[in-house]
């Protein structure tokens, strides 16, 4: 085989221009795959992260009814313990389970702020400030002021919302809401921080206040709308789900509560997972397109070397060896192209993993209620480079079988004539 390998290499220099064109066709395809996949992974990573941070946690505990009516953020279907003793009862039990890192309570409610003779709608999130900082790193997005402190009558608000209301850090904000008993109330809190997160939803529609304060004003002592269970690694959250399910089977026999895994029980994530399969086909398609150049080149080569193939056949090369000879020539081109593509693609994904691509113009008006960011960052990963390289080499190798097979099937007598 070694002499075939040597010969295939030497044959590549016979038509250098054609070889180079073919190599670059493959390289461009592989660059596209690396970059596109890096970008999609980037979008998925940030989208998943946002989904986990601001919606799902790793596993979420909610009331069964709340699950159905979540859009309306009702206050009647809360997490308040296995026997009405308050959410802390459940939190304590959950913390006993190995692999549970943190329990994050949230009490979300609808609120209104009058401004310019209009009422501006928004969501109040009663949160555990320390827990939020630990999990979402919300403090990094507070560009002015600070995060609220437990128990105090303080709130932080999205930057866009503040602008809309004409408020500054240090101002007082009065908001209207319904308590759990449906009485209409107003409360005034001190605005201590401004959130600028790039997430439209947070910036335009949310304010955070300490959980205890939210519970007090809503008359919901010990209740939250959801409990987020955080594990050390979101990709392995499903591993501890059975234990948690077991706990709930015993403690919650009437199934008041629902458990939701971050990547299983949400339509958005299912959509992304489905899209991923679709993207894999796109990558293969891109590579197949570039293979047409290579196949065309190799067919030309086979035709030009017909007599040579006949001669080699007379020398005693069998059809497998002739197939290998031409396939090797294609595979070398494919491997070179894939290698070049991976290097350039790697550099590009690296650059755009910090520089980012600004899609805000394209996303105008689309993303208001989705957890999307308008800045997309590619993900540089070895896995992506290896994936693109192997996919490139595999598709090219398969494609080369067409012209190589043509060479192998040539009748030596006809080829020599």
């Amino acid at each position: 085989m070694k002499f075939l390998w040597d010969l295939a290499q030497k044959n590549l220099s016979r038509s250098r221009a054609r070889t180079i064109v073919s190599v670059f066709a493959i390289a461009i395809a592989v660059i596209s795959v690396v970059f596109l996949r890096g970008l999609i992974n980037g979008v998925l990573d940030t989208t998943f992260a946002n989904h986990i941070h601001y919606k799902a946690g790793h596993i979420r505990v909610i009331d069964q009814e709340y699950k159905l009516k979540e859009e309306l953020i009702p206050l009647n279907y809360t997490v308040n313990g296995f026997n009405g003793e308050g959410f802390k009862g459940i939190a304590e039990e959950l913390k006993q389970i190995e692999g549970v890192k943190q329990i994050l309570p949230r009490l979300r409610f609808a609120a209104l702020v009058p401004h310019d003779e209009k009422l501006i709608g928004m969501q109040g999130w009663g949160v555990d400030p320390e827990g939020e900082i630990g999990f979402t790193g919300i403090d990094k997005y507070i560009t002015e002021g600070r995060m609220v402190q437990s128990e105090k009558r303080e709130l932080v608000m999205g930057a866009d919302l503040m602008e809309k209301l004409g408020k500054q850090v240090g101002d007082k904000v009065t908001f209207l809401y319904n308590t759990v008993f449906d009485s209409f109330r107003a409360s005034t809190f001190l605005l201590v921080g401004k959130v600028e997160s790039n997430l439209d939803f947070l910036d335009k529609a949310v304010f955070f206040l300490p959980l205890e304060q939210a519970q007090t004003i809503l008359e919901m002592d010990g209740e939250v709308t959801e409990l987020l269970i955080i594990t050390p690694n979101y990709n392995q959250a499903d591993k501890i789900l059975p234990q948690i399910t077991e706990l709930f089977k015993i403690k919650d026999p009437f199934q008041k509560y629902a458990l939701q895994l971050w990547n299983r029980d949400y339509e958005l994530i299912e959509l992304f997972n489905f899209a991923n399969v679709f993207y894999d086909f796109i990558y293969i398609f891109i590579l197949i397109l570039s293979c047409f150049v290579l196949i065309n080149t190799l067919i030309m080569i086979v035709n030009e070397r017909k007599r040579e193939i006949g001669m080699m056949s007379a020398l005693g090369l069998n059809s497998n060896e002739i197939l290998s000879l031409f396939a090797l020539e294609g595979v070398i081109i494919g491997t070179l192209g894939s290698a070049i593509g991976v290097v350039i693609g790697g550099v590009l994904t690296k650059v755009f993993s910090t520089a980012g691509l600004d899609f805000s113009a394209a996303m105008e008006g689309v993303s208001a209620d989705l957890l999307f960011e308008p800045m997309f960052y590619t993900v540089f990963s070895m896995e992506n480079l290896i994936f693109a390289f192997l996919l490139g080499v595999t598709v090219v190798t398969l494609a080369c079988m067409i012209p190589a097979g043509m060479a192998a099937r040539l009748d030596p007598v006809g080829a020599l004539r």
Partner: protein
Amino acid sequence: MTLLELKQIKKTYLQGKMEVPALRGVDLIVDKGEFITIFGPSGSGKTTLLNMIGCLDTPTDGEIYLNGNRISALSKKELALIRRNNIGFIFQSHNLIPVLTAYENVEFALLLIGRLSEGETRERVFKMLAKVGLKGKENRKPGELSGGENQRVAIARALIKEPKLILADEPTANLDSENALDVIKIMTMMNMELGNTFIFSTHDPQIREYARRYINLRDGLIFSDKKKEQ
């Protein structure tokens, strides 16, 4: 000793729906060490016959024995193996692999068999190239050698694996008469020295004279088969 035996070899080509008989029943016995020419008008079946003997093509009918083995019914893969180990070919043109040097072209035939060590291979190839008069030109590629020199490389390559049988289809047709004579003389010398059996076809009466047996083909049949009087 018999090297090759052909029994009623027939070959019919299909041209569209027309059957073209190229060989119509050839009987032939070739002994080891013979130096044979096949001649005859264009289209008489010379190339077809050499291809049959060389295991490049299979007969429509009849049987071929090489070294006592029946080869007319072997698979393509088995035929390739026989060519590789037992038969050397020299063609009219396009004999060599253009990206390989003279040395590498000759070496290629040995690498295919893959029995010799690197050192032995080297020594043998250099010796053979010297024998055909190409000393000092081992590292030239076919494009940097004359037509006559290229044919010598082809002879060296055909002989390097010491095959029992060497087949040459019009090996001198593309050469001027001086080079043609050189090539046939080298073939004669190799035949004398190494004892391989040569069968070559030619249109050139002057070249034909070097053979010791003359087979005249006409219309796919052996018209005459004469040996040179000693």
